[in-house]
């Protein structure tokens, strides 16, 4: 089964003065529709580079990135930009909502930028907010929302329309544990609607929401979790 996102042997090398810095080395990753993958690693391990390359914001030095089966390397700049606008949603630690727009307008913005009429964009945006339980916040401005609500609006914006790939960099970093959990539940809800999600984080509690966890060190995927067992095993272990 082809994934929504595939990375095949992806490497990224930067030049730092005369030194070569290997930010990513031969990374393979496939994320199917409806699945959440977490990438765990310390700062400087390459996990944010992995996300920017997966999101077509940067190009790899070698290897292939495929989004919905399309290799990014064979696309024109314009096609890549269109793919970024239409298929990929980004969530960052610091929300990145525009302060002058309401929650609904923020969510509708990527659609409008892509040429969808204002009325249709707004209706689609409202539907995304509604699906994620934020309908009553639609008319509020970002400064009238709590941190947790702002991040949830950012997630609604990331999955609005036909976006099928959600990329999140430490999405709960600035939130308390209760709001952090609400954000993860929302990403999980988006996955249950068919979105593929990649979350990069150093936080094990956050990563534990994912179907699979990859561990990255010095640009290399060094380990990954086994397929997830159901919770029943936890409750059965001590009954013997």
């Amino acid at each position, binding site marked *: 089964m082809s994934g929504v996102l595939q990375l095949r042997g992806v490497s990224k090398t930067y030049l730092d003065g005369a030194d070569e810095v290997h930010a990513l080395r031969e990374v393979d990753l496939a994320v199917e529709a409806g699945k959440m993958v977490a990438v765990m690693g310390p700062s400087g391990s390459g996990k944010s580079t992995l996300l920017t390359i997966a999101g077509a914001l940067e190009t790899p030095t070698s290897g292939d990135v495929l989004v919905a089966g399309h290799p990014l390397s064979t696309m024109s700049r314009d096609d890549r930009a269109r793919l970024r606008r239409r298929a990929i949603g980004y969530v960052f630690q610091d929300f990145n909502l525009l302060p002058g727009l309401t929650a609904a307008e923020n969510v509708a913005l990527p659609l409008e930028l892509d040429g969808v009429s204002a009325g249709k964009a707004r209706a689609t945006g409202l539907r995304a907010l509604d699906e994620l339980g934020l309908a009553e916040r639609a008319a509020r401005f970002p400064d009238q929302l709590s941190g947790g609500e702002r991040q949830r609006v950012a997630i609604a914006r990331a999955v609005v329309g036909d976006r099928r790939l959600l990329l999140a960099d430490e999405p709960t970093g600035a939130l308390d544990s209760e709001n952090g959990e609400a954000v993860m539940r929302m990403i999980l809800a988006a996955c249950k609607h068919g979105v593929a999600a990649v979350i990069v984080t150093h936080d094990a509690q956050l990563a*534990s929401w994912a179907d699979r966890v990859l561990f990255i060190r010095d640009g290399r995927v060094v380990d990954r979790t086994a397929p997830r067992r159901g919770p029943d095993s936890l409750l059965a272990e001590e009954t013997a």
Partner: protein
Amino acid sequence: MSVRHALLALLSEGPKYGLQLREEFEARTGEVWPLNVGQVYSTLQRLERDGLVESDDDADPGPQKGFRITAGGADELAGWLRTPPDLASPPRDELVIKVLVAVRLPGVDVHEVIQAHRRYIVELMQQWTRLKDEEGDLDLGLALVVDAELYRLDSVVQWLDTADGRLKRAALEPPAPARAAAPLIRRRAGVRR
């Protein structure tokens, strides 16, 4: 987990039968700590011997025998609730010892040992988190247990991450001269050579 005090807590709500005590204990701890019937009765016998509970004298021993808490039992329970568990001295944690051994052992990559434990713990955390996801509205007792487990396991991952980073830095630096602090820690931890 003190079964003794958990039974006193259940009896402080009113008189109960043995079987009922077992069922309520498991329900309140989110079924994470299953008890067998034998454990319940042997604990009740000891509590009775110590004057902390009383039973119906005339009833046969068995599931229908009723128990109630005494004033002494209520005092014991109140004291236990407010006594902090022993967190003061470093525990002889098996994982810490494994990492300490791995650092010294020739031919062993301590980072690989750390990663094996990190992966296992994250897999466990995924199972606990899935419980939160699948059960939706968790029973309050179970929700508290799940939170406690996730924070406990998370703290272990954080320690592994810190150890990983510390070992990586240490490998780049010249070894520091041995200090006199080790015997003090050894004494406090009660670790014998």
